[in-house]
């Protein structure tokens, strides 16, 4: 079998860039595929190439540095390109992509999957209205595109990202009515958590976010959350409430705020479509974002030659992603015979301390900020859980009443997860609905399983699929 490349790295965020660099630096012929016009992922996303910024932040500089290192390596970089399927091919894999030049496929011996994560969708009445958007989406619109999504916003979610988004929106001239942190934390605990967050070594930036809020008179409310959005064509007002035990809103605490924009950021969900498609073994870990691929100490999955790095393997942030990316790249260099095991052992050793501390911080953040079941009970029977196929929570509950006991069964009965997003938007809320409805039977998330992922991973023009079928 001859390979077009020895290694394919899928995703060019912090993890993917480091993986491709580490492998290529040791002589592994590498291809890297990413769906954006430039490498960097969400964290190191550069401004559009045609835009120019007067001063650069440390994140800008780090991203540019990684991109320049990559451009100096003989790594084939596919940009603006989707991976819609990965198929077994001899001892390796066939990677099917679709980009500006149309469909293409190449064969590789090794895979590093680094597809990152996306904002965890949380359904509540009105969450499909225009003007309701994720923290990640708002961040891109403001920071990368330099466009404000509205005039007056509420930011509701948990964890550090919501502060960054709110501060950026305020700096951009928007009025932010409040930032609501759903976790019921004491300010002191929060201070320690942020101070200890290794990834947020840019502590000064964190302080600047808070200062920006204070100057604008925007309150940062702990233990509050949005519970409903109302409006006709767009969000006009939101209902917020104080959070009780296990993230259940406290009756009687509701307040109404007039806003035209609602930004939601309840943490991230690993984007595991690819590792599930090729059937790596997965486990459920709520605090790391849900279903994650199982890995050994070299980040190899249950499938030999397939590695997963970064947030896709459990939410850990950009610094951990970089370390994991490098580790997986080195592991491929060893497996492919380009790097001596002994030399690699030394390199691994140097990274262990960083890995350990980053994982500890990630674990602490997960423990503090992972939303509880109550947050996933904001929806009522009329609320859509599947945005694509327009399936309500009531329909999911009916399916459970009719005997559905797994996510796959709910999908077969109701069509949830069969739309364009391939279940990325509804999987978790349907899972929560199932676990909630079956509480008496003590069913857990592992027990109800997950949606089966099938190619194409993204909707494709029919002509592309027809062509692929002929091959």
């Amino acid at each position: 079998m001859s390979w077009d490349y020895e290694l394919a790295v899928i995703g060019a965020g912090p993890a993917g860039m480091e993986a491709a660099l580490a492998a290529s630096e040791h002589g592994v012929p590498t291809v890297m595929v990413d769906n954006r016009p430039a490498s960097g992922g969400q964290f190191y996303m550069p401004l559009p190439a045609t835009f120019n910024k007067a001063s650069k932040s440390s994140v800008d500089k780090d991203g540019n540095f990684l991109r320049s290192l990559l451009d100096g390596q003989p790594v084939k970089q596919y940009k603006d390109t989707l991976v819609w399927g990965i198929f077994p091919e001899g001892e390796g894999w066939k990677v099917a992509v679709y980009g500006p030049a149309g469909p293409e496929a190449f064969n590789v011996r090794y895979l590093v999957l680094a597809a990152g994560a996306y904002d965890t969708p949380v359904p509540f009445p009105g969450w499909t209205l225009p003007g309701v958007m994720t923290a990640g989406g708002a961040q891109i619109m403001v920071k990368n595109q330099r466009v404000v999504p509205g005039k007056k916003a509420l930011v509701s979610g948990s964890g550090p990202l919501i502060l960054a988004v709110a501060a950026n929106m305020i700096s951009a001239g928007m009025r932010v009515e409040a930032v609501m942190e759903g976790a019921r934390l004491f300010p002191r605990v929060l201070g320690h958590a942020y101070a200890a967050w290794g990834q947020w070594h840019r502590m000064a930036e964190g302080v600047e976010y808070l200062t920006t809020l204070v100057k604008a008179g925007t309150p940062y409310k702990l233990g509050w959350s949005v519970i409903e959005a109302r409006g006709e064509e767009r969000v006009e007002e939101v209902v917020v409430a104080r959070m009780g035990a296990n993230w259940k809103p406290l009756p009687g605490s509701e307040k109404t705020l007039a806003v035209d924009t609602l930004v939601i950021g309840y943490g991230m969900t690993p984007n595991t479509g690819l590792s599930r498609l090729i059937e790596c073994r997965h486990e459920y870990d709520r605090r790391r974002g849900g279903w994650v691929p199982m890995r050994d100490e070299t980040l190899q999955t249950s499938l030999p030659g397939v590695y997963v790095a970064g947030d896709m393997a459990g939410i850990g942030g950009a610094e951990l992603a970089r370390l994991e990316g490098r580790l997986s790249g080195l592991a491929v260099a060893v497996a492919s015979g380009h790097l001596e095991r002994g030399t690699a052992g030394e390199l691994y050793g140097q990274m262990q301390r960083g890995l350990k501390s980053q994982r500890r911080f990630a674990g602490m953040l997960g423990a503090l900020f992972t939303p509880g079941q109550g947050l996933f009970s904001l929806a009522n029977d009329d609320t859509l859980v599947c945005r694509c196929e327009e399936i309500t929570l009531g329909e999911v509950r009916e399916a459970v009443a009719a005997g559905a006991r797994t996510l796959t069964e709910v999908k077969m009965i109701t069509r949830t997860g069969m739309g364009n997003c391939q279940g990325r938007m509804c999987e978790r809320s349907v899972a929560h609905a199932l676990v909630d409805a079956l509480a008496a039977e003590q069913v857990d998330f592992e027990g109800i399983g997950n949606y089966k992922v099938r190619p194409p991973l993204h909707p494709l023009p029919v002509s592309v699929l027809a062509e692929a079928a002929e091959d």
Partner: protein
Amino acid sequence: MRIETSSHLLPKVTRGKQVQVTVDGKTVAAYEGETVAAVLTANGIHTFRLTREHKHPRGLYCGMGVCYECLVRVDGVDNVRACMTAVADGMVVETCKEVEL
């Protein structure tokens, strides 16, 4: 609205070359490097499509290519993600078109 102010967190940027795009029959100014989603948002358009079943309005949600809520028609091609598509001079964008995949 486009951000024209300059602050420490968001220093002033100069955008790419100005181009013209047509949005629902109206000519609007855009800048190279902007996404279709940014141009629509900057022009106060927040409903990008109507749902198949209930004709409910939908707009930008995930903003990063995952949710497929921001589908619009671009140069006659349906179901294009506004958030992942860069504008080009002369581009024709139509919102609220039937989406059938």
